[in-house]
């Protein structure tokens, strides 16, 4: 277990350390201007200096992203389930949902902000909008992907539709559900930050905008890296949940 962890985490950590060292060295060796590319040390400096406010803003963004992720995923799961059970609903709504999905989030964010106000609620709404489609589509596909012979087995055993859903179709759908959740969790951080770009007085998106206007590039970089870190942590949490809930899935097989 520990050995596997070292094996898996080792190479990326080595690469990271080497990369940061090179970056630091290059900034000094070539005299790169701070506003073009701040050295890691000056980014770290900006982070330490403003850590209290940066972490406060990161907390706001994390909350928006998580709340939007949960609401969007829940809606996506419900709608996806309805589509899996009703061909009419799926055929009627899917074309429009796919069309809506192609709208760039920066275009829809101002509208959502008008509807949901200037507070945190509208940022959550933008995030939910963004993290709705992947789960709706994957939920539908997952619920339809069950083994037909297993369904016959349930039929012969006189299973009720509810039993068939919870004991067969939902477990069969879980690998798909996690594909959707992993997409959502990445989109959720993007959604929150884009919404903050459009209008906000707090959050990492707000920090990035204000730092840009005042050319405080190390602070901008610190905020940017924090948002990246947030996305990675969220992703790892979902990946860990997948290992708990879908341990049988082939892609998880350690003997692969």
């Amino acid at each position, binding site marked *: 277990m520990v050995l596997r962890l070292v094996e898996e985490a080792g190479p990326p950590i080595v690469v990271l350390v080497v990369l940061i060292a090179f970056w630091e060295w290059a900034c000094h060796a070539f005299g790169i201007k701070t506003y073009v590319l701040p050295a890691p040390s000056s980014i770290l400096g900006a982070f330490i200096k403003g850590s209290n406010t940066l972490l406060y803003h990161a907390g706001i963004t994390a909350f928006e992203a998580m709340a939007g992720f949960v609401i969007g995923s829940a809606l996506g799961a419900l709608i996806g389930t309805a589509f899996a059970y009703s061909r009419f609903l799926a055929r009627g709504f899917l074309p429009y949902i796919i069309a809506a999905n192609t709208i760039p989030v920066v275009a829809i964010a101002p509208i959502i902000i008008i509807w949901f106000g200037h507070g945190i609620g509208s940022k959550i709404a933008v995030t939910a909008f963004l993290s709705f489609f992947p789960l709706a589509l994957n939920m539908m596909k997952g619920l339809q992907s069950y083994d037909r012979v297993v369904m016959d087995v349930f039929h*012969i055993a006189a299973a009720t539709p509810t039993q068939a859903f919870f*004991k067969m179709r939902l477990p069969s759908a879980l690998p798909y559900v996690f594909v959707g959740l992993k997409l959502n969790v990445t989109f959720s951080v993007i959604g929150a930050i884009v919404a903050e770009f459009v209008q906000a007085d707090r959050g990492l998106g707000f920090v990035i905008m204000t730092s840009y206007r005042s050319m405080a590039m190390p602070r901008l970089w610190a905020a940017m890296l924090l948002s990246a870190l947030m996305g990675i942590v969220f992703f790892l949490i979902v990946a860990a949940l997948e290992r708990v809930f879908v341990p049988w899935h082939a892609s998880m097989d350690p003997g692969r």
Partner: protein
Amino acid sequence: MAEPALRDTAMPAVDVRNLSLVYRSRDRAVNALSNVDLQVERGSFVSLIGPSGCGKSTLLRVLGDLLAPTSGTVLLDGRAPRAERLDRRIGFVFQDPALPEWRTILANVALPLELRGTPRADREAQARELIDLVGLTGFEGAYPRQLSGGMRQRAAIARALSTKPRLLLLDEPFGALDQITRDRLNLELMHIHEVTRVTVVLVTHSIREAVLLSDRIVVMTPRPGRISRILEDRLPRPRRLQTRDLPDYEDLVRLGNSALERGYAHV
């Protein structure tokens, strides 16, 4: 053959009369079964054999209430297949073991009992007995993918037996297995039939398998699917693999093959 007392008093376990089934799709209709009549005595072992596409699976699915006939009647112990299915008196084994991969062997075998609402302790005790009957003791906690194809099919058989069905339907259950595994599972099936006295309808491609196991062999022909011949198989019971060394065994195999060939002539 079943005990004379049973044979004389009991109504047939399976009573199919004038059964026809047409698959209709947008542009064509397939006469999968046409005017099929079949009676199966309670406790007996009947095999369905015939070239692929002659409607064996269709017939079995009608018996298991997975398909409704286009016309004709089907009675299982005098009742509609639906009633028998809802009472969980039908066991069905498919060529694919169809064991949900997230369930252990124990949970897979206990699944029909779980769906019926049997308390956990009860259903697990019953499942353990069946796991023992099919020779999978020690693999209760294993997941399907950790088992060989033959072992998975044993688990599927145990699951089909879990609700103590009166009728066991098997659709080419050993079709995907190698010959040695097949022989062993044939032995197990004979044993299960002897122990439980469940009525068995087995679909197979192998005339040798059919002759070894059956009381009667139903030969079918395709397009439209119908019964062309029924062979009585009175080889002594209990059957063993050595039964295949009897001269009567080879005679029956020859008879079966020629019946099959006449069937192919219709293709």
